[in-house]
């Protein structure tokens, strides 16, 4: 007999805050600097140094909390989390334990069964540790080097409730969370640079059982795809373990992308006792209500609200609105376009079609393209005026995308102006008719389709510049009665 299991997933997401300086000193947080160049006595934890909180970190954490419907704690404090590791200069991490800055929030995700709310347990602030670089392989290393540039880089840890029931939901949650943080501009959420890191807690239990099953903690998943794959693997693994009558062991497992499986890192018996206690070097934070209100009032429009507004204000289909609000930059491009040219669906089609295709082809970020909404609007006006055909428009669009040049300049420079001079088109039409007797024969014998071929020939002859309507009409006039 087979038992049906329910999957329980909770995520812990670390996001690097986009501040210019570190959390407790004014060293730069810039990525990619030469090792140990962005360090000072404070972030190196030299004897006698003391941390002083960067207020921007608190501000960004509160903004994230507000956007994720959290309660913002009026009284909050930092704690020390003690453990030894060569990349941790003070041998403790300054973090928050029992009084995090934000609690009891939620985020809405789309699932196959519709909308679902995922609870956010807490958001807390903490400092990052450094980076170890091993010479040779980790097990046979001849030496290890430490880069402390990352130490003291500000992070928020966003802990979800165990509300997700499928790996796909976990991925949807992450996607939505990333979108919110990006919209707020509190984090660049770059997973490759480690600005967004995710750990997952996963367990399974027989359907109907109230108690949670024994969980495994998954680490080291470096992409959304990896999170979903790791969770899928882990759920199956646990089902097999339970299926053969064994028990799931509480442990930390790491995802190996090349092997496509999770591997045990350390068991529970090695679980740490971090000996948390209040950080005596930092005074507790009393967060001013007025300030929170100011921050709340100044929050940008968030993805879900924006999506809804795109449907109602512009009459866009839900699908379009979702695609266009996927990133803040894309949504901004659309709104600029609509301001320049009052046809939301038309603007949307160009962005969702040619624009996103080019972005994908060029493998660049939306922000990196040279296209602006204003240029798109101008191009659409040129189409309306009959200056360019829709076909030519595609060429113009590509050029705008790459160079950011004005569409009129492009048309001028490339000689793309549509030919609407009937006598000139007629000349070419006549030429094409005489050059293609077989096609003409076909049309005359009733094979109307062949007209398309002749239109194509005319367009080819004019390098796409002939007014297609006119070409069609002339051919019909001359060959069909």
């Amino acid at each position, binding site marked *: 007999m087979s038992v049906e299991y329910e999957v329980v997933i909770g995520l812990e997401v670390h996001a690097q805050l986009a501040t210019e300086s570190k959390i407790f000193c004014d060293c730069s947080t810039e990525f990619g600097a030469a090792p140990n160049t962005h360090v000072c006595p404070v972030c190196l934890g030299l004897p006698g140094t*003391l941390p002083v909180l960067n207020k921007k970190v608190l501000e960004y954490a509160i903004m994230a909390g507000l956007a994720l419907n959290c309660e913002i704690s009026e009284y909050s404090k930092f704690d020390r989390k*003690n453990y030894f590791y*060569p990349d941790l200069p*003070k041998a*403790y991490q300054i973090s928050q334990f029992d009084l995090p800055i934000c609690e009891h929030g939620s985020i809405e995700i789309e699932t196959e069964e519709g909308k679902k709310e995922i609870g956010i347990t807490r958001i807390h602030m903490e400092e990052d540790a450094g980076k170890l670089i091993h010479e040779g392989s980790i097990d046979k290393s001849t030496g290890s080097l*430490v880069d402390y540039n990352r130490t003291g880089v500000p992070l928020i840890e966003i802990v979800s409730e165990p509300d997700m029931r499928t790996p796909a939901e976990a991925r949807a949650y992450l996607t939505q969370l990333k979108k919110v943080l990006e919209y707020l501009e509190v984090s660049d959420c770059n997973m490759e640079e480690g600005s967004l890191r995710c750990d997952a807690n996963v367990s399974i239990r027989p359907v109907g059982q109230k108690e949670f099953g024994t969980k495994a903690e998954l680490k080291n998943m470096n992409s959304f795809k990896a999170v979903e794959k790791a969770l899928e693997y882990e759920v199956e693994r646990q089902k097999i373990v339970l299926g053969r009558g064994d028990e799931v062991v509480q442990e930390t497992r790491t995802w190996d992308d090349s092997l496509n499986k999770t591997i045990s890192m350390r068991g529970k018996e090695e679980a740490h006792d971090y*000996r948390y206690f209040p950080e*005596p070097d930092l005074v507790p934070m009393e967060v001013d209500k007025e300030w929170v209100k100011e921050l709340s009032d100044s929050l940008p429009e968030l993805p879900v609200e924006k999506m809804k507004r795109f449907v109602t204000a512009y009459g866009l289909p839900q699908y379009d609105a979702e695609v266009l609000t996927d990133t803040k930059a894309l949504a901004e491009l659309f709104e600029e376009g609509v301001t320049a040219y009052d046809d939301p669906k038309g603007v949307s089609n160009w962005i969702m079609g040619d624009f996103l295709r080019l972005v994908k082809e060029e493998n660049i970020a939306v922000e990196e393209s040279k296209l602006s909404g204003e240029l798109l609007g101008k191009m659409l006006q040129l189409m309306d005026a009959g200056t360019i055909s829709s076909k030519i428009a595609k060429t113009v669009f590509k050029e705008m995308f790459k160079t950011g040049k004005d569409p009129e300049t492009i048309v001028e420079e490339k000689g793309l102006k549509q030919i609407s001079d009937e006598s000139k088109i007629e000349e070419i039409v006549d030429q094409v008719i005489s050059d293609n007797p077989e096609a003409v024969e076909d049309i005359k014998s009733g094979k109307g389709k062949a007209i398309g071929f002749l239109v194509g020939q005319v367009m080819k002859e004019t390098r796409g510049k002939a007014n297609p309507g006119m070409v069609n009409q002339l051919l019909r006039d001359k060959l069909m009665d």
Partner: protein
Amino acid sequence: MELYDLTIHELKERLVDQEISVTEVLNTFYERIDQVDDSVRAYVSLTRDEAYQRAGEDLTGSLAGIPLAIKDNMSTEGIKTTCSSNILNNYRPPYDATVVKKLKEAGAIMLGKANMDEFAMGSSTENSGFFKTHNPWNLDHAPGGSSGGSAAAVAAGEAAGALGSDTGGSIRQPAAYCGVVGLKPTYGNVSRYGLVAFASSLDQIGPITKDVKDSAILLNAITGHDPMDSTSVKIDKPDYTEFIKEDVKGLKIGLPEEYFSLEINSEVKESVLTAVKKMEEAGAIVEEVSLPSAEYALAAYYIIAPAEASSNLARYDGVRYGFRSEQASNVSEMFTTTRNQGFGDEVKRRIMLGTYVLSSGYYDAYYLKAQKVRTLIKEDFDKLFKEYDLLISPTTPTTAFKLGEMSDPLEMYQMDIFTVPINIAGIPAISLPSGFDSAGLPIGLQIMGPHFGEGKILQAAYTLEQLLNIKDKRAKVEVSK
């Protein structure tokens, strides 16, 4: 009187009047050091070259040309800062502690770094990782601790004044044993930036001087808000020398009955009560008061201080600076052997104690309970200071004990019984000599005040100093060679 016997303000007068030059002053003190420090052993290192170089500069400020000793747990740029520990025996900080910077700005000259109990843990300076310091009044006796080197240097004429640090009495107790004046300021009044932490929530830097007026002068130079220390308080900085006046009329003084009913040396008790009597005759109102929670202060202290110390001292792991054991084949062994070989017994004892009381199963029973006791003690003091201006007690239950005499650490901890509650409550207190016992050893009297009551304390101490008329009595160091 010899030049080295002069107080800071007496030296200052002569320097201002150009009776003597800064170089002459330095010559005098270094000659004295050469003469007696082989016997006293107050200094861990001397900074002769730097000092003479400074003497050549155009020194201005309230301490221009004044030679001082600095306890070796305050960071000095490029100059060894060892905390009298083998684990830091080669450590040279790349920055100055805020107090060191302030003293430099005030024109003071550092003669050298003073010996101490390792990482400020101890009450005798016998726990120095390098050597013991001797009491200048009787070389067989301990100078007290942990600022034993600083107090002995001042008492022996090896410095005009000194800075010490006080976590549970480490300025006041050695000041009492060495017959000098030691002031522990209000927590937050002097920046701790650059003070190598023992117990962050208790540590405070303060002056050790030959008389009360010097104490006010040094305090003026080192107080004030420091943006590098978020626990440093933003208040208007008073001129503490304005409180150097003889007047105790109408001052309400409380004598905590719990203190006097303890088993204390009768000569100490009598000396303190006689001094109090003189203040009463000078117009002070003296009453017995009750400080019921004081008896728990020591217990709470020996939970909180080791807890914080275990965390603060975790950074000495051999990775980045200081001593590193060569006898290790991997990282975790390197941590362990480095710490095992680098730390002395008392430090190890407190690290283990602290680690234990913070560990997850015991946190509530010990650390949390101790914090609650701490709140009660604070409340007790607050209540008393609503009614009384100051409190007076002996600084220590006995006069300086013999070196090697105190072998049981618990017995040693009892030496701090009168000083510890002040650190627990974060309030200021001064120790000044009230007389001598039959063996000729100094007796210390402690005056305690409310938060930021340093001015009132200094005024009462100065008045008492005038009434007692023993301030010019200096230790006659028996030089062995």
